[in-house]
């Protein structure tokens, strides 16, 4: 009962304080008041009584209906949880300055597209291509920045993606970005498919002290990890071993890849050297992330003012009919006219 009632609400609850006015017709009548010396002298008339109560009830209904109608009643919108196909995808975008160069490592000129512009265009298409995906966007350079929390509002996510080809900031601090990207998943049901998509054009050394913390986080959240590596032509690939010493400082990309591989979560790296390769990688990710996901659907709220106004209208029609069919005892009898109208509780009909 309480649950059913809780689904109803009004726009202006304060107006409902006027509801006691609806009791007014029980004491007052809209009909002509005719003083009668002794009502008890007449025989009890069942029909008159019924008409009297009908009119009182109609008056109550009218006033109550109008008050409730003005308050604007509605039935709340509902949130229904259904199951669709999709995933929770946390997008982690590198906003360091080098993202604004082309894949050839130059400043974009003419028809050339910078890495950031290409990823903006392609990721923007990706977001919203499936209705039930949920996205979160995190940007990172020197510090990680939470841009949009996990949401199914794709317009907001696209607005965040729109901003990624603006001039970037200084450095690439992968570790803190990864930590925040993971934190975006939140404590949700474990059976949802989760994916962490990192888009960057470089890598950096992950401090060994932070590595342990990151490993623990990855083990807890267990996302599928995708690294979209926007490689500049001529720069070292993920798999290239450096000629000299093989340290994280000498080949950060290779060692970040090794770190990801050692995490024990499903991991794929995509090396893209041009927009087409980026598009192909995103298509693959889309195909891989096909699991059931619970999503919520909003049922809009339903306006119920018409019910209240309908009730008021019904009451009003009865009252109007009562007024039209009114007899005038005073005129009819003519003889016993009293000077003042005296209050009487009886209704003349």
């Amino acid at each position: 009962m309480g649950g059913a009632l809780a689904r109803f609400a009004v726009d202006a609850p304060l107006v409902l304080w006027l509801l006691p006015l609806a009791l007014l017709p029980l004491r007052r009548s809209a009909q002509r008041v005719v003083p009668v010396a002794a009502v008890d002298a007449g025989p009890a008339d069942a029909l008159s009584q019924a008409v009297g109560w009908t009119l009182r009830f109609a008056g109550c209904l009218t006033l109550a209906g109008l008050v409730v109608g003005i308050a604007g009643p509605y039935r709340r919108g509902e949130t229904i949880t259904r199951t669709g196909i999709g995933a929770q995808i946390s997008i982690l975008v590198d906003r360091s300055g080098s993202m604004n160069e082309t894949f050839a490592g130059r400043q974009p000129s003419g028809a050339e597209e910078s890495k950031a512009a290409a990823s903006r265009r392609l990721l923007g298409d990706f977001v919203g291509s499936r209705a039930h995906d949920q996205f979160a966007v995190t940007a990172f350079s020197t510090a990680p920045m939470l841009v949009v929390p996990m949401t199914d509002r794709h317009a907001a996510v696209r607005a965040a993606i729109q901003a990624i080809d603006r001039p970037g900031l200084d450095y690439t601090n992968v570790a803190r970005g990864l930590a925040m990207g993971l934190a975006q998943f939140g404590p949700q049901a474990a059976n949802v498919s989760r994916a962490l998509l990192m888009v960057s054009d470089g890598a950096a050394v992950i401090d060994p002290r932070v590595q342990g913390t990151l490993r623990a986080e990855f083990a807890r959240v267990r996302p599928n990890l995708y690294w979209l590596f926007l490689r500049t032509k001529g720069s070292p690939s993920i798999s290239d071993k450096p000629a000299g010493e093989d340290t994280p400082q000498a080949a950060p990309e290779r060692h970040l890849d090794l770190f990801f591989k050692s995490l024990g979560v499903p991991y794929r790296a995509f090396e893209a050297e041009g927009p087409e390769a980026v598009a192909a990688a995103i298509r693959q990710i889309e195909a891989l992330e096909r699991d059931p996901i619970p999503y919520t659907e909003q049922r809009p709220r339903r306006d119920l003012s018409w019910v209240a106004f309908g009730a008021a209208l019904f009451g009003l029609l009865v009252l109007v009919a009562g007024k039209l069919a009114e007899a005038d005892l005073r005129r009819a009898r003519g003889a016993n006219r009293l000077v003042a109208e005296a209050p009487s509780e009886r209704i003349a009909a």
Partner: protein
Amino acid sequence: MKIPLARNLRDGRFQALAGATVLTVLTFVLPALPLTRNGVSVLAVVDITGSMNVRDYTGPDGKPVSRLETARGALRDLVAALPCGSRVALGLFTERRPFLLFTPIEVCADFAPLDGALAVLDWRMAWEGDSRISAGLFRAVEMARDLGTDLLFITDGQEAPPLPSTGGPTFDGKPGAVRGLIVGAGAYALSPIPRYNDRGREIGFYGAGDVQQENRFGPPPADAESREGYNPRNAPFGGAAATGSEHLSSVREPYLKTLASQTGLTYAHLDGPGGLGPRLLAAATPRPLPGRLDLRPFLGGAALALVLAVFLLPIARALSVPRALTLKKA
């Protein structure tokens, strides 16, 4: 008994009830009135530099609250108060430039992510420690022009490092081309600035020696010659270390007002976590939004007044006419 129809029709109470009936019927017939309301489209840029951590606001429970937290509260309140269809973009400011987090988002349909993004605004997102307000503001104006929005720039106005004696950068845009608000955050009295270590934990406050008190890049100020220990070659800024109150912070209202007049923006002081809505609506470019005015409450209200008059009028009349005779049945 004959019903005196003509007389009944002339009765004022019948006419009132009939009028109420017509009004109630109209609630079913009349469509909602289309009208345009004024919304805004605004780029909100929040200063997240160190001085915004100063706790010189008082929270609802009497505890001190930082400027950034108050600004965050004010923005969340603003987003909830703006008419549907208004759009808000969000940027951060530190160093000397704004950083756009997202392009404009509609405040009603996408309220949840927008509110979520505002709720987590944090000084830890800062990428550098400097706070060159004027440079940041001028670039924010440019960014807002780019996006086709107005600007809401929340800052305390404390330049770090202090401006050189020659003054800051000059605004080379067109004043007034972008409208909006500069919101000054902070109290008018000086307060200490909290200091954090490299792991983000608070470790006390900045002391006088921890910050640059005077900008000694560029040419020395005009009064340098009168300073003690002045030497044109070896001590062009005087012999003594600079002193000042740059390690303390208050809202730099005169400076922000100067910036506002240079850029054609309006200045407003942030008094607490609320109340930005009306001031922004007044300062920003009004953007017409399609809206609907539901006429039913008005029609219903008029009908209610008529019906109440019908029931209450006899009382009023009875009260005004002295009764000669009272017949009362218990």
